C-alpha cells in the first residue's frame, strides 16, 4: 500500500515537472514610499504564472518564476499596487518595490486580489488574514468595529457566545490562543466580559491568525496564533483620524518627528456610557426608590515610535495600555474593580548582510485586576497579576538554492500574583490575608527552513525546543512542525501540515466565559503543561479567472493534560489551588470549506465548518467524554461587501451555528433546610453539556457612506446588528411556576434568555 502512494506521488511530481523546469529566482524588498519602512507580509506575485509569495519581517521576498517576461505586482493593504515588467533570465535578479499610500479605502480592499494567487502558492496553510480596513467596512455590534469578532466569521473559528470576542479555534479554548500585539503577548484581549476586544481598529493595521501548521517561531499556546500588527506612524506629515460612535470615540494622531528618521503614532479610545449614567444618578439624587447606577468605562491607549538609524538599523517601540473600570461610591460604601493589560516592546532590526537579518526585542507585558471594597472602617482588597519580561532574537537567512532559514531564541521570566487578598479594619481588630506569588522561566529555541524543492513542491519544516521551570520543577519538550505544498497545476495546490504545541501557563476559569477575574497559573509540581498535536490536509483551487479561491481543509487535533476544575472549586482565594485541578484529554476534528472573492465590486467569503470537539476527564461524567461548550456541528458564515458607487458601499454578514452544548438539570429535590429558612428546589445536574441550545443565526447589514468634508475625509458607517431580531439563545434555565393566590409551586417551565435584539448604530469617522 505504501509503495502505491509513493508511486502516485512520484508520478504527480514528474507529470508536473516539465512545465516548471526552466525557472529562475528573483528577490528584493517592498517598502513604503512615505517612510521607506519595510512592508511585512506584502504580496509579490506574477499574475501570468500564478506564482506569488509574501515578504518577511524585513520586507524581503524571493520568488521562483519561469524564464521569460513577467508583470510583477507588489500589493499591500492600505497601499497602491506596485507593478514592474521584468525579463527573468537568470537567478538572483533583484527587483525592489516602493509603494504609495492608497487614497481610497474601498480601493484598498481590491488590492487583495492578487493575494489569492499567493494563498494558493503559499506553503503555509490554515492561516486567516484580515486588515483593519476590511473590518471597518463590515457591520458591527453597537458600531464598535472589532477585528477579533470579524475573525470569528472565518471557518474553524468560533465565538464562545452571543456578542463575545473570545476565539475558539479548532476546538481550543480562548486561553489557548497566543495573542500577539507587535510580538508581545496580550494576556486578556477583551473588555467588558469579552464583549469587545482590546484592539482599537484605528491603531491596528492587520491581523493574521494561524489555526494550524504553526511556524516554529511561535510557541507557548496550543490552539492558535493571533498576530496583530499595529499601524506605523506617518513619516510625511502630522495627520489625525478618529470616530464618534454609539458607545465610544476614537482618536489617532501620527506624524514625523524627524523627517525620514523618526515618526510616531498615538491612538486612544474610550467609552462614555458612564457620563450619561452619572447624569442620571445626579438627577435621581434624593429618590429613595432609585438605586444609583455604577460607573463603567474602558479605554485603550496605543503608541508607536519608529526610528531609522541608518540603512541597516532601525529601532521601534510599541506600547499598549488599557483598563476597564467598574465602580460605585455612596455614603460610607465604595467599590472599585479595575482590570487591564499593559505592554511595551522595544525592537531593533538589523541587516547583517543582503541575506541575513536579525530582529531583537525586549518586551514587558502584564495583566492585572484589582478589587477594592470599603465599608465603614473595613477594607477589602483582592489582586491578581501576571507580569512577563521577554528577550527574543530572530534571524532570517536567505541561504539560496531555495532555502530560507529562520532561527532564534526566546526567554521569558513570568511573575504571578495569585489571589492576593487583604482584609483589615481601621481599628486594627481585623487583619488577615491570603495569596501566593509564583515565578517561572520559559524558553524556546527554534529553527525552520522554508525550502522550495521545485516550483511544484515546497516545504516548511522546523523544530522548537521549549522548556519551563517553576517551583523547582522543570519541563522540556520538542515541538516538531512541518508543512508541505504540492502544486498540481496553476490553479490547484495540495497542502498538509503537522504541528506539536506546548502550553506552560494556564488560565484558571470555571465560568465558561471570559471574566476579568480569571487567573493565570504556571506549570509546576502537580500541574503538567498542556500539549496538543494537530494534523491537517488541504486543497486550494483558483477559478473564475483568478477571482475565486476555494479551499478545503480537514484537520484532527488531540490534546493532553487539559484542565478543568472540581465541582465547587474556589478559584478566588485559595492557597492550595492545585488541589482544585482536574486533568484530562481533548480532541477536535472537522472539515472547513472556504470560498473567497476579493476583487471586483462585490467581494466577500462563504465559510462552512463541520466539526466535533470533545473533552474527557476521569472525574467528570463518570469518565465518559462530553462535548465542549464550543462544540458546534455546523457553522456557516457568509460575508458580502458591495461597492454601489464611489461614495457608497453596502455590506452584510449572515452566520449560522448549530446549537451549543449546555448543561441543564435533569432532576430536582425539595430542600427544607433548618428553621428560619423557606424550603427551596435544588436542581440535580448529571451529564456535562448534554443538552443542545437552539441553533444560532443572525443577519447583520451595514453601509458606509463617504462624505465630502471641506478638509480631509469622512464617512458615516451604519450598522444593523441582528436585522431580523432573532432571539438567539444565550442561556436556558428552569423556572418555578407558582399559584399567585397561595404561592404554591404548580409546575416548572424552561426559559430561554437572549442577549441582543436588533441593534442599529451609526458611527462618524474622519481623517485629515
Amino acid at each position, binding site marked *: 500500500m505504501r509503495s502505491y502512494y509513493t508511486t502516485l506521488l512520484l508520478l504527480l511530481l514528474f507529470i508536473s515537472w516539465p512545465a516548471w523546469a526552466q525557472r529562475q529566482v528573483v528577490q528584493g524588498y517592498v517598502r513604503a514610499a512615505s517612510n521607506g519602512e519595510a512592508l511585512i507580509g506584502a504580496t509579490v506575485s506574477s499574475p501570468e504564472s500564478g506564482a506569488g509569495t509574501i515578504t518577511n519581517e524585513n520586507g524581503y521576498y524571493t520568488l521562483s518564476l519561469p524564464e521569460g517576461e513577467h508583470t510583477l505586482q507588489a500589493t499591500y493593504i492600505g497601499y497602491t499596487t506596485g507593478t514592474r515588467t521584468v525579463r527573468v533570465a537568470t537567478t538572483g535578479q533583484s527587483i525592489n518595490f516602493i509603494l504609495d499610500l492608497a487614497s481610497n479605502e474601498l480601493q484598498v480592499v481590491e488590492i487583495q486580489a492578487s493575494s489569492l494567487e499567493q494563498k494558493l502558492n503559499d506553503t503555509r496553510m490554515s492561516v486567516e488574514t484580515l486588515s483593519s480596513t476590511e473590518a471597518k467596512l463590515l457591520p458591527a455590534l453597537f458600531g464598535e468595529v472589532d477585528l477579533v469578532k470579524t475573525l470569528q466569521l472565518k471557518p474553524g473559528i468560533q465565538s464562545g457566545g452571543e456578542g463575545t470576542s473570545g476565539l475558539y479555534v479548532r476546538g481550543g479554548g480562548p486561553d489557548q490562543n497566543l495573542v500577539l500585539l507587535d510580538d508581545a503577548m496580550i494576556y486578556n484581549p477583551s473588555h467588558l466580559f469579552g464583549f469587545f476586544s482590546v484592539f482599537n481598529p484605528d491603531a491596528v493595521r492587520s491581523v493574521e491568525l494561524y489555526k494550524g501548521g504553526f511556524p516554529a517561531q511561535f510557541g507557548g499556546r496550543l490552539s492558535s496564533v493571533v498576530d496583530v500588527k499595529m499601524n506605523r506612524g506617518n513619516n510625511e506629515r502630522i495627520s489625525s483620524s478618529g470616530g464618534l460612535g454609539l458607545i465610544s470615540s476614537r482618536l489617532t494622531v501620527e506624524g514625523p518627528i524627524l523627517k525620514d528618521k523618526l515618526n510616531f503614532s498615538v491612538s486612544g479610545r474610550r467609552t462614555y456610557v458612564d457620563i450619561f449614567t452619572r447624569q442620571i444618578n445626579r438627577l435621581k439624587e434624593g429618590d429613595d426608590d432609585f438605586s444609583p447606577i455604577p460607573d463603567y468605562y474602558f479605554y485603550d491607549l496605543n503608541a508607536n515610535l519608529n526610528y531609522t538609524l541608518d540603512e541597516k538599523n532601525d529601532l521601534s517601540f510599541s506600547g499598549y495600555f488599557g483598563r476597564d473600570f467598574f465602580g460605585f461610591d455612596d*455614603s*460610607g*460604601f465604595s467599590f472599585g474593580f479595575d482590570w487591564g493589560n499593559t505592554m511595551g516592546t522595544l525592537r531593533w532590526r538589523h541587516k547583517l548582510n543582503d541575506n541575513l537579518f536579525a530582529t531583537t526585542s525586549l518586551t514587558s507585558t502584564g495583566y492585572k485586576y484589582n478589587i477594592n471594597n470599603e*465599608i*465603614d472602617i*473595613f477594607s477589602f482588597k483582592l489582586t491578581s497579576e501576571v507580569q512577563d519580561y521577554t528577550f527574543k532574537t530572530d534571524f532570517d537567512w536567505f541561504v539560496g538554492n531555495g532555502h530560507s532559514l529562520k532561527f532564534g531564541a526566546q526567554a521569558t521570566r513570568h511573575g504571578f500574583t495569585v489571589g492576593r487578598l487583604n*482584609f483589615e*479594619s481601621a481599628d486594627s*481588630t*481585623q487583619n*488577615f490575608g*491570603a495569596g501566593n506569588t509564583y515565578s517561572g522561566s520559559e524558553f524556546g529555541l527554534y529553527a525552520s527552513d522554508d525550502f522550495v524543492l521545485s516550483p511544484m513542491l515546497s516545504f516548511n519544516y522546523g523544530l522548537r525546543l521549549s522548556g519551563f521551570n517553576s517551583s523547582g520543577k522543570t519541563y522540556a519538550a520538542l515541538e516538531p512542525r512541518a508543512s508541505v505544498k504540492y502544486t498540481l497545476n496553476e490553479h490547484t495546490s495540495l497542502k498538509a501540515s503537522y504541528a506539536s504545541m506546548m502550553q506552560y501557563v494556564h488560565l484558571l476559569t*470555571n*465560568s*465558561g*466565559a471570559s*471574566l476579568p477575574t480569571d487567573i493565570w497559573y504556571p506549570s509546576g509540581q502537580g500541574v503538567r503543561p498542556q500539549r496538543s498535536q494537530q494534523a491537517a490536509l488541504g486543497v486550494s483551487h483558483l477559478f473564475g479567472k483568478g477571482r475565486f479561491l476555494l479551499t478545503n481543509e480537514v484537520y484532527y487535533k488531540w490534546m493532553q493534560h487539559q484542565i478543568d*476544575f472540581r*465541582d*465547587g472549586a474556589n478559584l478566588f*482565594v485559595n*492557597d492550595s489551588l492545585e488541589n482544585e485541578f482536574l486533568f484530562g484529554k481533548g480532541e477536535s476534528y472537522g472539515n472547513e470549506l472556504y470560498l473567497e472573492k476579493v476583487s471586483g465590486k462585490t467581494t466577500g467569503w462563504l465559510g462552512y465548518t463541520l466539526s466535533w470537539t470533545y473533552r474527557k476527564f476521569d472525574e467528570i461524567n463518570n469518565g465518559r467524554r462530553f462535548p465542549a461548550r464550543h462544540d458546534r456541528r455546523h457553522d456557516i458564515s457568509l460575508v458580502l461587501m458591495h461597492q454601489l458607487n464611489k461614495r457608497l458601499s453596502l455590506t452584510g454578514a449572515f452566520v449560522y451555528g448549530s446549537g451549543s452544548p449546555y*448543561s*441543564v*438539570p*435533569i*432532576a*430536582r*429535590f*425539595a430542600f*427544607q433546610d*433548618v*428553621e*428560619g*429558612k*423557606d424550603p*427551596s428546589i*435544588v*436542581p*440535580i*445536574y448529571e451529564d456535562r453539556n*448534554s443538552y443542545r441550545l*437552539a441553533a444560532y443565526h443572525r443577519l447583520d447589514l451595514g453601509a458606509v457612506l463617504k462624505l465630502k468634508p471641506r478638509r480631509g475625509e469622512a464617512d*458615516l458607517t451604519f450598522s444593523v446588528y441582528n436585522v431580523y*431580531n432573532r*432571539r438567539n439563545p*444565550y*442561556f436556558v*434555565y*428552569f423556572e*418555578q411556576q407558582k399559584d399567585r393566590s397561595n404561592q404554591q409551586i404548580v409546575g*416548572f*417551565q*424552561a*426559559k*430561554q*434568555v*437572549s442577549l441582543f*435584539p436588533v441593534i*442599529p448604530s451609526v458611527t462618524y469617522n474622519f481623517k485629515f
Partner: protein
Amino acid sequence: MMRNCVLYLLLPLLALLSSCDLEKDIDVSLPAYAPQLVVECYLEPGKQMRATVLESSGYFEEPNPPVVPDAIVYITSPSGKRVQLKYKPVMVKSTGRFYTHTSSEVMTGKPGDIYQMEVVDGRGRKVTGFTKIHSKVNIEEVEWRFNDKDEALLITTFQDAPHTPNYYRYMTHIDSLSGGSDRDFVTSDDLTDGKRVSLGSSYKYAEGDTLIVTLYHIEKQYYDFLASVSDAKNANGNPFAQPSQIKSSLEGGIGIFTNLAFDRKTVVIRK
C-alpha cells in the same frame, strides 16, 4: 435631507428594540430519571429525633416531592442504642418544619459524640451517614453603625478556635425566624484561624429594626453540602456558573445528616 433619512431609518428600529422581549418559554426534553432517596435529619441537643425522607423527581414531573411511606429510619447513638424513627408525617406549626419520620427519643449527645443514621425502604434502597456533635461558638458582639443616610450596617463578632479547621453558617432574620432569612452564608476559618472574626453587612437596616443573628458551628460535610446546594441553584439561571453536583453527606442517596450547634442573639437597631 440626509439627517431626516437617518432619523426615519432609525426610528422604527429603535421602536423595535424597545419592544423586544428577550426571554421566552421553550420545551426541553430531558432523559429518564431514576428517583433517589432524599434525607434531611438535623440532631439538636435536647430535641426529639426527627427526619424527612422524600424522593427526588425528574425536573418536569409533579411539583410535590414524593414521600416514601415504606422507608424506615434508624439512628444509632454512641452508646450503641438504635432508635427507629417511624413514618408519621407531621407539620410543626411553630417552626414550619415538615417531618416524615419521628421518634419521642431526645438527643442527649455531647460534643465529640458520633451518631449514625441508616434509612432503608421497600425497594431495597439504603442510605447511611454519620454526624459528630459540635460545640457551639458564642457570638461575642453584635454592633451596628449608621451612615449619613441613617442606614445601618451590622457587624457580628466571634472568636475562632485556633489550630482546628472550623466551619460556620451565619444567618440573620428581621423581626422573626419565619418568612425566610435576611442573610445566609457559610464560611470557613481558612484565612482566620484562631482570630477574632467580624462578619459584616451592607448599609441596609433602619432604626427600630429587630434583628435575629444566628451563628452555627457546622461540620465540614454540612458546609460542603450547603455550598454545593448554593452552587447548583446558582448554576440554574447564571450563564457564567459551572453546573455543580450535590455533595451529600450520605451514602446511597441525597441529603444531609448533621447536628445543629448554634448561638443566637436578638438586637434592636438604635441610634
